[in-house]
């Protein structure tokens, strides 16, 4: 290897390290802060490694046991809100999984229909569904709030599931339609001639072949729903339906919550999407690519 090539390698690795620091730095600091006392966070500059290392904040979130004096403790820095974090996590997971299921079911069937069937009004229906995504969320936020109020779905997980589904389905349908269209028809045609119905062809043949695409939209719709904030903010208020982004935003805004407690909240909130994104990263990337190429 030439010296020049070595230099090039060194530069690339240096850049890679810089990138790593840029991406992971905030996460690591958050982790560190969640184990620190409030007063420790108050110094300029702060301690990078928690000293003392306390799991008090985590314990408070899960058990409600208020930590003892942490130094400057005159102002009670704990809010019940932090204890609602586990429940909000559960709400978010339920809602996101439901949205994922809705997408897998409805989007697959609809996409297959768009891809394989010829019927009157197909193009119109397709663009109708896609076009709905052009509206910015803020434009429809208030009317949707009204609709859910009038149908008594306000402040329920079901209401949020429906709204999130309506936002994720267009993209899922689009990606899957392109996916199905790109698949050769021969195998399905063969089974059709053998007497199978369209739906049967879909389930036994098309879906296994399109599994990567399905994995991609499953991941996308889960992430979208889990991370969604504006509608969750407007549509959920009580502990039984509040999703985790709403809970995090509330506690981050709460002057009565210590910064270390806030850090704990964020850490707990991001575990699920981090895991999902890591497991599905290949599919996510490929899903994006599919929608690009076609």
């Amino acid at each position, binding site marked *: 290897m030439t010296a020049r090539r070595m230099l090039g390698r060194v530069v690339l690795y240096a850049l890679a390290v810089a990138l790593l620091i840029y*991406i992971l730095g905030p996460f690591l600091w958050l982790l560190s802060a969640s184990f620190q006392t409030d007063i420790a966070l*108050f110094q300029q500059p702060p301690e990078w490694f928690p000293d003392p290392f306390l799991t008090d904040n985590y314990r408070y979130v899960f058990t409600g046991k208020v930590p003892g004096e942490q130094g400057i403790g005159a102002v009670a820095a704990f809010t019940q809100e932090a204890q609602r974090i586990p429940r909000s996590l559960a709400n978010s997971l339920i809602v996101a999984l439901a949205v994922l299921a809705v997408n897998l079911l409805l989007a697959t069937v609809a996409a297959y229909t768009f891809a394989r069937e010829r019927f009157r009004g197909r193009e119109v229906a397709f663009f109708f569904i896609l076009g709905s995504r*052009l509206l910015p969320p803020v*434009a*429809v936020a208030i009317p949707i709030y009204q609709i859910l109020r009038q149908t008594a779905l306000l402040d329920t997980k079901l209401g949020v599931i429906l709204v999130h589904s309506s936002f994720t389905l267009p993209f899922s349908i689009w990606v899957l339609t392109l996916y199905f269209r790109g698949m050769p028809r021969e195998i399905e045609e063969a089974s059709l001639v053998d007497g199978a119905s369209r739906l049967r062809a879909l389930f036994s043949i098309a879906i296994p072949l399109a599994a990567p695409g399905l994995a991609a939209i499953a991941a996308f719709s889960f992430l979208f729903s889990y991370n969604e904030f504006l509608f969750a903010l407007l549509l959920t208020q009580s502990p039984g339906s509040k999703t985790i982004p709403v809970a*995090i*935003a509330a506690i981050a805004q709460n002057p009565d919550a210590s910064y270390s407690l806030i850090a704990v909240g964020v850490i707990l909130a991001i575990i699920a999407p981090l895991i999902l*994104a*890591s497991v599905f990263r290949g599919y996510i990337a490929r899903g994006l690519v599919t929608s690009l190429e076609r």
Partner: protein
Amino acid sequence: MRNHDRLSAIGYRLSARRSTAYSWLLILPPLALTAFFSIYPFIVAVDASTHRILLTRPKKQPYIGLDNFREVLRVAEFRDAAVNTAVFAAMTVPAVTLLGLGVALLLNQRLPGFGLLRWIVLLPWAIPLVGAGTMWRLLLHGNTGALNGLLLELGIIDEYITWLSRPTLAMVAVTMAHLWREFPLAAILFLAGRQAIASELYDVARIDGAGAFALFRDITLPLLRPTLLIVLVYETVVSMSVFDLLYVLTGGGPGSATTVLAWYTYATTFKFYNLGQGAALSLLMAAAILVVIVLYTYILPAKEERR
């Protein structure tokens, strides 16, 4: 094969009518959801925008025609919000695009350990925006921010920078948080686009003696144009709609320094309780985004059409 084709064709025609109804049935659920949660609300928003609706005085909702629009467009705050939105977009879109492109080219290297990098790069994009925003708020706080602490320790600054208390810096702060969170998507898109370019093109050019920069300028860049268009459009729309970050990072402040259109619309309805004006603003925003998308599609025509 042709027999199969003909059989399929016959099959199609025979069951055409039943097929149409059946097809519509299969696409009905998503269609209904879309209609219910996109089209109907849009109509409702249009209706609301022509009435005076105050959330604390719900009994009276007089029709006022286009007054909401006139009032909204006339005030200085709207102009400021529009300018802030434009400034923010002008700062973030190039930043995200350039960083995304740079990172993509870096990730494209087949070096040991870079697979790990390709995984990690996705992480900021996967977390909720309010989580990212809160992380950055902890980093940028004027008295206790960790980034301030780091810069202080490295000797780059003498005292903590009050990012969120100074109007210009607050905009920079939001840009920084937004960039950190958005660049992974751009990077992935560019990486995919780059990897779709046949390596033979590069090999041939290298044999002809082209250096790295020439390769980039003559092969990579032109063939990435379609990807570039997608990234630009998407990131522009995203930056015009930024809301979650603002909620936890600046609340539109200090003052109105980071009040962009999305925040202004939200505040008009939910802090100033003026639903009629909020609806009017939403429609104006929708129109603006549409205009932007159309402009992009005509100014940067993609060389490769959709197959």
